[in-house]
């Protein structure tokens, strides 16, 4: 079957600048598959997710390429139609659970709004669904949580609520933007397991943005390594951990902390490797400019 989400040659740039922040990114995901997007800070991981969902900051625009969601080219759709399609098929698990819930609204409408307003559910159906989902994310007293304001919940609780909210409308695609980065390690593990659990149960296609290769090995089937907004390696997860092909990927893997050998853990990525990959990115830019 054809991929559920295909990103083809996607480039984005700061408005009015020649400098691209995403450089001809291509990848695809099948239903039920999890793709990890890995890279250091500023590599453009989150940007890709935002580009797909149409929530790029206003200063950044897509300058070329296509995003096919369920066979439809998002770039060619009218904005209103695009929003409707994304609203019906895709969802986001955001990075920071502290700012991702509206502080002045109770939890319940924040989960059910989409169901009632966009998908036309009745209030009581939506409420039932919200309860069910809060149960699925192992919240013991969903009624009380739904009546709470975000500031009354802990960070881990809020992330659970956000995950429940993301899966509420049975999305076919979920973009998880570093969903565990803002949480402490013990909570991280639970949340990861939870995301994996829901993703498997609903056989959702998922883009998992992270800088943590350990997380990728647990959650994803395939991964793409990004540097400077360019994908330097696409690989299946087992292949990657056996032997990454790109020098930068190897260095990134080597820099992952090893818990059994703490002294060797703080290995920075070699300067020479960075220079090489940066040069590669710039060369690709040059080629792109001449081509376009």
């Amino acid at each position, binding site marked *: 079957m054809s991929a559920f989400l295909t990103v083809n040659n996607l480039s984005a740039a700061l408005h009015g600048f020649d400098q691209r922040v995403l450089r001809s990114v291509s990848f695809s995901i099948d239903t039920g598959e999890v793709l990890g997007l890995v890279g250091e800070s500023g590599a453009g991981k989150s940007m890709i997710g935002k580009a797909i969902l149409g929530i790029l900051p*206003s200063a950044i625009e897509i300058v070329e390429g296509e995003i096919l969601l369920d066979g439809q080219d998002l770039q060619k759709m009218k904005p209103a139609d695009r929003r409707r399609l994304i609203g019906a098929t895709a969802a986001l698990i955001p990075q920071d659970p502290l700012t991702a819930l509206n502080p*002045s609204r109770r939890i319940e409408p924040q989960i059910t709004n989409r169901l009632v*307003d966009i998908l036309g559910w009745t209030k009581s159906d939506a409420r039932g669904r919200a309860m069910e989902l809060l149960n699925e994310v192992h919240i013991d*007293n969903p009624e009380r949580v739904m009546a709470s304001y975000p500031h009354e919940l802990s960070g881990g609780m809020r992330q659970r609520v956000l995950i429940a909210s993301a899966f509420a409308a049975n999305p076919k695609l979920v973009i998880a933007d570093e969903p565990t980065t803002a949480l402490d390690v013990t909570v991280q593990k639970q949340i990861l397991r939870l995301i994996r659990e829901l993703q498997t149960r609903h056989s959702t296609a998922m883009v998992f943005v992270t800088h943590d290769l350990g997380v990728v090995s647990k959650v994803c089937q395939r991964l793409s390594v990004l540097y400077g907004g360019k994908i330097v390696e696409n690989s299946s997860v087992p292949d990657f951990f056996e032997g990454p092909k790109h020098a930068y990927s190897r260095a990134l893997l080597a820099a992952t902390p090893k818990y059994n050998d703490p002294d060797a853990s703080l290995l920075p990525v070699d300067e020479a490797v960075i220079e090489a990959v940066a040069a590669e990115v710039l060369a690709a830019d040059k080629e792109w400019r001449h081509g376009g």
Partner: protein
Amino acid sequence: MLDGRGSLKRRLGARLWLSGTWLGIMALLALFAPLISPHDPLAQDLFAGRLPPFWLSGSDSAYLLGTDSLGRDVLSRLIHGARIAFSVALLAGLATAFVGSTLGLLAGYMRGWVDIVISRLVDIWMAFPPVLFAILLIAVLGTGLTSIIIAIVVIDWTRFCRVVRAEAMNQSAMDYVSSAIVAGRPRRDILWREILPNVLPTIVVLSTLEMGIAVIVEAILSFVNLSISTDAPTWGGMIAEGRTSIHQAWWVLAFPLGVLFLTVLSFSQFGEGLKDRFDPVLR
């Protein structure tokens, strides 16, 4: 799980209590002015001119706070003055808040050309000296309560517009707005249900501050005789009249000045108190 609801209820605090009480009393006086005031604020009695307040010798117990040079009762004029001051404060404060906040929300949320037009307008507006602008406006509109209110709205909407625009921009950048967009919710709905509730505390606080400012502006305009009709019992007008006889009858100046001062202070303190209470970060 956190169960902090009970403990999160904070006490009102002296600031809110004191300012609230003063404003409450003034509001009641304003509301029931005709019933409470012992005399007609406009009635003159030239034989009872410049009577001192009740604790000084030579006072008349019928005039508790004394009379001015035309023999009008200072207390009655103060009470009726409160009526004018509070009408202006409420109407001008709310109207300014409405106009400024609406434009600020639109600019901060829609961005693009809407923002450019509104922001440039604010910049141009703020280049006018406000008091001169007010006097000019009154000169064009003519005196009267409505003119004063219009003048205040026209001059001060920028105050709201700037702050609300910045706040709307802040909120628009939050992840929960992104989530709402991803959920496919319409833009109007996002503005109305996601952004406005979070900007509202700011608007409420600014409104109370604006009410204080409205009281001052009205007093200034009365002082320069550009408010309501000349003999209307306004605090600013009383201050202007009292100024001429300060050596013979200080009370004609002192009482309206004190009441004006306390009222404006109370409005601003009330606003500050509300801010502490409603600030979502502190909540």
